[in-house]
């Protein structure tokens, strides 16, 4: 996966290989993730200070609960020797203090660790956004990738809160406890350390390895279930109309059963790890009784210290339980973060942002960091001239070779061809997002682009329209909406998640308004499958309006496979022939 565009165009393939790789070679991914974490902490103001603070608070909280039981045990044993009450006061105060501080430390540890994790997540989001903005994303199948990125980024929170912090603090507490108990009796402290390493580190790692294999097998099962459910939900009427209800329910049950089998193995492993941890701590208690008991019998250790040795492992068990889960969390998180790392380290494709003609000269400074791939001025009569053009994504094969066509003002030219022939690649090339592979490309400096899946942002209608022209006035926006056939849409209305308060036709008209608000009007407008996913009547009305608003002032290049749209155009160019 050295080539970013491949991973952008075929993310489904990437997922599977990455999951398999992660389960087989967890080592490499863990060290990658570690360097990402280190880099992000470095980017935060006082990042290391915050993280160490969280670790210190966590150690204090866990330590307090261990100390509570240990000191209490000492208190009881010493009290049994009936010393003067004064001698017990310090221990009694310590017990009360540990009882109070544990909850307090834990509360602040949660606050500090979540704060630092959220800051790291923000930093990672900024890095990812910056990186994605610099690579051209127009093209097939990118939707999956972009949706997954947002979920993947959140894994950094898990790595900090659920993995790094518990492991760091548990290791420190274990080591510290063993050292302190070593002053009481060396051999039982050594036994405790060995048991702790087994239960806290070795077991979680074994559980992780075992679950990585079952996780890998549950990924395709989960995907199958999602696929069957998705098809069933979308094709409900078809299933009912053709009497396939029982068959469909059986298919879901079958996919469900396979996922259930995979998940059952995971539950088995988790239970086994937790049970074994408990047993190992039992061994530590037993070792303390035998070895410490021997020390007491020989007089090497005062009797009151035996209870401390025997009871401390019981308090440690609670912090181990989180570690088995932490190791499994790391499997999932490192798979997700590996995808992010791949994305961050891959070389960019194309220019990312299009070079847009400055709309208002005074504001050009903000966009001047973009390397201008200034197109040559088109010949006086044409707004688009392709001469022997070869197109294809950088580092990928040329898809279409020797393409020649001319679009003159007032013309609409259709480019047709079956799905996957390279229509969107042509759009990206004409828009200047990726370079042509060979041949000549002369295009007007200002080009509008209307996509079938233009994104409607969760903000006001007005802000959505202004994406076409950030300097447009409120009146400009209202006028653009009116011409786009949406006179009833209030500019200040906030569009819901994924634009779901707009119908498909309305969303496409908002996208049209983005083009209509560009000033001066673009000499060429690209339409990319403008009728796809619209019902016939809505599509026809939209095409009527586009032809009425866009064509008189410019020209159009229409990428489509809809014969109805082709019929409206002046000319048809077939790709792949």
């Amino acid at each position: 996966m050295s080539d970013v565009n491949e991973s952008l165009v075929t993310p489904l393939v990437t997922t599977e290989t990455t999951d398999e790789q992660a389960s087989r070679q967890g080592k490499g991914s863990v060290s990658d993730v570690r360097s990402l974490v280190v880099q992000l902490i470095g980017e935060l103001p006082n990042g290391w200070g915050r993280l160490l603070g969280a670790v210190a608070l966590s150690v204090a909280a866990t330590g307090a609960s261990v100390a509570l039981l240990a000191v209490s045990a000492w208190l009881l044993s010493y009290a049994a020797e009936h010393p003067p009450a004064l001698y017990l006061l310090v221990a009694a105060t310590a017990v009360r203090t540990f009882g109070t501080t544990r909850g307090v430390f834990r509360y602040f540890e949660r606050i500090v660790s979540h704060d630092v994790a959220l800051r790291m997540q923000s930093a990672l989001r900024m890095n990812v956004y910056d990186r994605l903005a610099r690579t051209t994303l127009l093209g097939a199948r990118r939707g999956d990738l972009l949706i997954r990125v947002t979920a993947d980024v959140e894994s950094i929170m898990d790595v900090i809160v659920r993995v790094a912090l518990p492991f760091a603090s548990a290791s420190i507490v274990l080591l510290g406890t063993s050292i302190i108990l070593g002053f009481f009796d060396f051999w039982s402290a050594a036994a405790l350390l060995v048991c702790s390493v087994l239960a806290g580190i070795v077991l979680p790692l074994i559980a992780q390895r075992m679950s990585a294999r079952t996780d890998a097998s549950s990924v395709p099962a989960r995907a199958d279930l999602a696929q069957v459910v998705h098809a069933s939900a979308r094709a409900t009427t078809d299933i009912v109309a053709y009497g396939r209800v029982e068959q469909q329910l059986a298919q879901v049950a079958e996919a469900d059963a396979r996922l259930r089998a995979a998940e059952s193995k995971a539950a088995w492993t988790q239970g086994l790890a937790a049970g074994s941890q408990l047993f190992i701590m039992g061994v530590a208690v037993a070792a303390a009784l035998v070895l410490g008991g021997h020390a007491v019998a020989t007089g090497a250790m005062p009797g009151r210290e035996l209870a401390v040795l025997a009871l401390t492992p019981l308090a440690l068990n609670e912090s181990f339980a989180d570690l088995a889960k932490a190791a499994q969390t790391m499997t999932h998180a490192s798979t997700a973060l590996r995808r992010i790392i791949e994305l961050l380290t891959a070389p960019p494709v194309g220019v990312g942002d299009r070079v847009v003609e400055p709309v208002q000269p005074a504001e050009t400074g903000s966009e001047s960091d973009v390397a201008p791939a200034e197109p040559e001025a088109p010949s006086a009569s044409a707004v688009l001239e392709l001469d022997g053009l070869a197109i294809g994504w950088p580092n990928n094969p040329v898809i279409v070779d020797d393409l020649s066509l001319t679009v003159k003002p007032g013309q609409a030219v259709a480019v047709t061809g079956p799905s996957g022939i390279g229509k969107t690649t042509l759009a990206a090339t004409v828009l200047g997002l990726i370079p042509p592979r060979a041949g000549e490309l002369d295009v007007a400096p200002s080009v509008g682009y209307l996509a079938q899946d233009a994104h409607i942002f969760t903000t006001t209608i007005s802000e959505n329209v202004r994406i076409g022209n950030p300097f447009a006035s409120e009146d400009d926006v209202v006028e653009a909406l009116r011409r786009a056939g949406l006179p009833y849409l209030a500019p200040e209305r906030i569009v819901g998640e994924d634009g779901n308060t707009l119908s498909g036709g309305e969303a496409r008209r908002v996208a049209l308004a983005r083009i209509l608000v560009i000033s001066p009007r673009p000499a060429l407008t690209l339409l990319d499958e403008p009728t796809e996913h619209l019902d016939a009547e809505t599509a026809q009305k939209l095409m009527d309006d586009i032809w009425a608003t866009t064509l008189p002032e410019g020209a159009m290049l229409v990428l489509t496979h809809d014969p109805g749209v082709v019929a409206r155009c002046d000319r048809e160019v077939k790709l792949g022939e």
Partner: protein
Amino acid sequence: MAGPINPRLLREAGATRGFIIGVGATGVAQSFLVIAQATIIAGTVTRIVENRSTDGVWTAVGWLLAVFAARGVLTWLTSVLAHRASAGVKSSLRRRVLAARLANPGSQTSTASIVTVMTSGLDAIDAYFGKYLPQFLLSATVPIIVGVAVAIHDLTSLIIVVVTVPLIPIFMVLIGRTTQTQVARRFKVQLRLANHFADLVAGLPTLQVFGRARAQAKGLAASEGESRRHTMGTLRVAFLSAGVLELFATLSVALIAVTIGFRVLAGDLDLNTALYVLVLAPEIYIPIRMVGVHFHDSANGDAAANAAYAIIDAAEAQPTVDDDSDATTAGDSGDLLQLDNVTYRYPGSDEDAVAGLSLAVRPGEIVALAGTSGAGKTTSLNLALGLLNPDEGRVLVDGGKHLTTQRGPDWREQVAWAGQIPGLLGPTVADDVALGLPAGQAVADHTDLLRDALDRVGGESIPLDHPVGDDGEALSAGERRRVAMARALLRVEQGGARLLLLDEPTAGLDEAREAQILWTLRDLGVGVLVVSHREAVLAAADRVVDMTAPAASLPEGAK
């Protein structure tokens, strides 16, 4: 606030209820093992300290290891049983949600919400059964059993337990109430800020086309900062309840420890009993504390279950029409399909989707439904399929039989249908076209038939082995319509359907192909009800029923 236990979810467990009882039983067994563990540890330590000898330590250690081994096995068993319970509930809910969706195809629940509920949504139930429920069962049994075990040897310590334990749930409820209102108040703004990144990333291709992607980075940084401040504000409140819970639990243990310490000093209590109480005291509080820790799992599981039940309930709440005995009293009119002054309104809507529609289709006749968007043309087809019951008027089929959703399945065996945005099941085009064949026919035996049907509806360029799916390689919307048409054609020619229902069958086709399809329809000789706005289709129909939108102000696409 939701109750501590969702009774419906427990009922759902049905056959797997045994596993839940098993989880409870392991909890009870754990308590007795914990008591045994405390007895052995306290007894052994006391004996060694008092006798200064390790006599009998190996026997004690043997018993101790056996106890820990048993506890380990029970821990493993709890995990497995909890998984069984949760998996059973998930499977049952998945089946019921999908069955509800298929029982009520006319419902307006969005595809996306069904997919979410049935896949990742229901996974929240794992934590409910895997973490919350076992802890809840433990918190109801362990403190009582262990408390009694403490009381047998030391009544004084029990008093501390009896005073402090009830305080914990009381405080939890009090704090939970306050935090919940606070959290709910912040939640909306927090969600909007949190989604800004997702929204920008999803819209990156659009931003790049307008050269606006990099300019958004500054706005993103600002909203990220604001989002973090809001989230931390919420967390500070939300962590409070867990913090207080932990404080109470550990403080209570400390209180017990100090109290028994001074009673040992005074000679009121022997070391053996004191150590025994010290080992048991934390065990009383752990399950209660854990209920607090996993409380959000309960809330998430509850929410997931309720989302599933909402879909199931919506399907069951669909009004059923009395199966009137005068099924054929309308008289045999010879009409294949008759809509008699039919009105339908979607639940929750305040306007009729179809208002007072009347039409009839006789065998061999092509009837076209025309009208503006939002006039209810597609809803009319759903009524004719028996997917919806009209609010007023009647749908009569087969010469006057009263069609209700209950009779829908029988009626649909005689109907072929092709929607405007057809859903395909796959895995390949051939499988989908073959849905039109009579049940039980193997796809491989009829490839010629499938190919021929596809060719006659303008799908010559679609390979039969082309995979069907949602990704970039899949069919375009126009190609999917061809597949659905071919399927309907086979249903008439091979499956013996007598009525053909079509929604915009010629959308996106050129005139030559449109004419070819109209000829094909005429040749079939069955009754055809076709929704279309194309001139050629309306001209070819024997009759045109014009539906005008009941609400002309409706925006397009809102049907």
